[in-house]
């Protein structure tokens, strides 16, 4: 390439640059008011495919963001849905409580368990009913499934319940067909108490697995007919004296959130006083 041709090319480049620059200045000044139409025409023609691409990309990005939001919402919904069985179970328990209330001939007060089994104190519960609700010491505490225990201490608005897992718990019991009687006590051993024993059963009696055992009403604490559990198997036999059966409890305190506390019977003439 010669100096002359370089110079010519340089002049041509400069001319082109000046023309482009002038066009830019004219476009910026827009003396005839066509810049809007020009820009619009470019967007409709040359730039249309690129704008389409950008719009699609934007759409994908927005959809993805929307998808992420939906995933979060779905996860939240799943979390809420996981609560449904618990709420449904609680609902069933409450409905059962109401039905049980209808069946009971004794007055009662419903209460909520404030603390389930706590470490170091696995035999007591705190319930939300106290003296202001008419609760008295030794009052039986029941759940839809059966007996929970008895009130051992009463405050104004709360009560302490000794459950059947307490080593000192005893209840006079009888089979549902009233054929065999005995004493129900917790089976105390290593680890948490989860089973009951039916003790002092007459030696000649024979109870099969699944036999329902209820309170007998003797002793003055528990009214007759509250379910205690079902016979699992024969645990011990003292020939000529008595038998001890192992029982599955009707209800375990840890599985209960609401209870009914039975109140002393109302005298028949109290309503007329």
């Amino acid at each position, binding site marked *: 390439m010669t100096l002359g041709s370089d110079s010519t090319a340089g002049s*041509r*480049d400069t001319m082109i640059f000046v023309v482009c620059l002038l*066009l*830019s200045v004219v476009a910026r000044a827009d003396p005839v008011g066509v810049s809007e139409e020009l*820009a619009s025409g470019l967007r409709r023609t040359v730039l249309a495919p*690129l704008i389409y*691409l950008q719009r699609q*990309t934007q759409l994908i990005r927005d959809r993805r963001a929307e998808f992420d939001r939906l995933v979060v919402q779905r996860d939240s919904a799943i979390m809420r849905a996981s609560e449904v069985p618990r709420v449904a179970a609680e609902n069933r328990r409450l409905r059962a409580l109401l039905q049980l209330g209808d069946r009971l001939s004794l007055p009662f007060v419903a209460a909520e368990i404030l603390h389930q089994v706590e470490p170091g104190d696995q035999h007591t519960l705190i319930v939300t009913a106290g003296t202001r609700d008419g609760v008295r010491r030794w009052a039986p505490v029941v759940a839809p499934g059966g007996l929970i225990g008895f009130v051992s201490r009463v405050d104004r608005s709360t009560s302490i319940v000794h459950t059947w897992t307490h080593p000192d718990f005893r209840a006079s019991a009888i089979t549902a067909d009233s054929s065999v009687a005995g004493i129900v006590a917790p089976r105390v051993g290593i680890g948490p108490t989860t089973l009951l024993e039916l003790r002092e059963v007459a030696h000649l009696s024979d109870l099969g697995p699944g036999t329902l055992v209820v309170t007998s009403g003797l002793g003055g604490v528990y009214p007759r007919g509250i379910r205690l559990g079902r016979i699992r198997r024969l645990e011990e036999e003292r020939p000529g004296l008595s038998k001890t059966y192992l029982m599955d409890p009707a209800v375990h305190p840890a599985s209960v959130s609401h209870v009914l506390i039975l109140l002393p019977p109302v005298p028949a003439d109290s309503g007329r006083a």
Partner: protein
Amino acid sequence: MLAGLVLLHFTLRPWLGNPRWSPDFLLLALMLYAIRARPGRAAVAGFGVGIVGDALAEAAFGAGAFAHTVLAYLQAWGKAVFFPENLMVNVWFFLAGTWMRDLMVMLANGELDARAMLWQLGTWSLLRAATTTLVGVVVLVGFRDAMKTGVAL
């Protein structure tokens, strides 16, 4: 490669976050071309890229065309002074070019508020220049051999 950068500008850039600091693929394509082309062709390319940018933006029409034309022309002349194959020279071209483009667009738009200019040129333009330069370095390193022969362009 330039077509690829143009495509990336419209497809990848929306994914890269804030457009104020995300890399300007169109400008990068222009600078890669201008530093290897004759000044006249670079000026035409700059004008074209600027007009495209103006048509897509709400800013004053023609300001981008002016800025890109000047930038491309100057960068095309720059290769007479510097070695365009040198990576560091390219890095400085990308950095200064991006920043100068923003400055010229602001001036051509008449945006002369000192605080706004300081914020734009001192923060966003620097960030955009950095990200654009980063992409430019990746392109240069990735297509080093092809760029030497001009095949990649």
